């Protein structure tokens, strides 16, 4: 007897596509199908997964003639960050490896319309080819394109360089308690092999905040809701190593309106101290 729906998927799937993926085990292809068709639930409102599963592999593929369509921007031991030509449609970007162990998966990312960057996880010493596709409203990939190859990761840069980090502040300096100070940090990039960064920020009274900075030649980050008279620290982690930048937020004393706001009548407390 025929298990109807699965076979339907089979018959319409174009053979040509299979040759390009024929080295990929069925388990990995099916896991990709399921993962994409599941996660689209979070991306597309009133979405039905049946068509997505049934027709996932139903469209042709071509080999990209435009090398700039997908560019490898940054690499670390565990990930690669790609820049993709933005599209009005949702896009699927995936890394196809030469071989897979059963528990490994095809690493992929979903880009909302207009999205340009995606960070995909990689295993060291495995060669990957980037495939892209546009997604119909039902999540069915079309215009499959076999794009660029991901070069093997050459390891972190051997030379350490310090990033020249600068900070400027804006926000409301009027009162020491209700302050909403924002710190804007900028630093230099040492070139095309130094475009992605991770930052970690905290102050004495403000907990750790961590963010990934997408590829840019003019790296910057804004940290919001700081208070006056704070001692803080920003660490920038890039291709040339980590740079720690310690700084202090503006002091209430330097801002007339803040000092005036705080000249409340001072009732002395009976200070008694006994060891």
């Amino acid at each position: 007897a025929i298990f109807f729906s699965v076979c339907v998927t089979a018959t319409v799937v174009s053979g040509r596509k299979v040759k390009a993926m024929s080295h990929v085990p069925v388990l990995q292809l099916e896991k990709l199908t399921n993962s994409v068709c599941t996660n689209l639930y979070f991306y597309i409102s009133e979405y039905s997964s049946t068509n997505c599963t049934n027709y996932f592999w139903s469209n042709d593929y071509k080999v990209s003639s435009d090398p700039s369509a997908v560019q490898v921007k940054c690499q670390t031991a565990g990930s690669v960050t790609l820049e993709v030509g933005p599209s009005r449609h949702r896009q699927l970007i995936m890394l196809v490896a030469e071989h897979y162990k059963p528990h490994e998966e095809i690493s992929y990312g979903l880009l909302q319309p207009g999205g340009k960057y995606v960070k995909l996880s990689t295993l060291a010493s495995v060669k990957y080819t980037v495939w892209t596709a546009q997604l119909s409203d039902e999540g069915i990939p079309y215009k499959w394109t076999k794009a660029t190859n991901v070069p093997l990761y050459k390891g972190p840069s051997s030379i350490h360089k310090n990033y020249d980090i600068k900070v400027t502040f804006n926000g409301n300096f009027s009162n020491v308690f209700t302050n909403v100070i924002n710190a804007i940090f900028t630093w230099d990039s040492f070139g095309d092999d130094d475009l992605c960064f991770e930052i970690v920020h905290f102050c004495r009274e403000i907990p750790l905040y961590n963010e990934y900075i997408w590829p840019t030649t003019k790296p910057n980050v804004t940290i919001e809701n700081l208070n006056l008279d704070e001692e803080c620290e920003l660490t920038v982690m890039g291709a040339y190593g980590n740079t720690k930048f310690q700084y202090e937020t503006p002091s209430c004393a330097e801002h007339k309106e803040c000092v005036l706001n705080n000249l409340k009548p001072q009732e002395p407390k009976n200070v008694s101290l006994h060891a």
Partner: protein
Amino acid sequence: KRGNIKVEEYNQAIPDPPCSCEYKKGFINLGENVFPSNIETINCSTNQQQSCPPPYICKESIYEIKILRKRKSMAEKSLARPTDLEIGWVAESLPISVGCICTRDYVI
């Protein structure tokens, strides 16, 4: 009351430091859809404690941990999380009390 530090009676008869705070350990149960589901917390036994006299007071010291919770919708914002972790889990921060310290008593 047993010394809260175990060796007190045996080889170092030193009193508590002048401004130590008595504390009680407890935990929060966040249920099956959160990792971690049980989290240890520390509360000051009472705010005004003998060994931490005015103008000082025993206060809980707050530390922000990161937790994972099952996602309900795409509208939910997630903090940074490993690329490979299923999209169905959202990363959030949760301030908890991890200590009880003798510090200034602010009337704010």
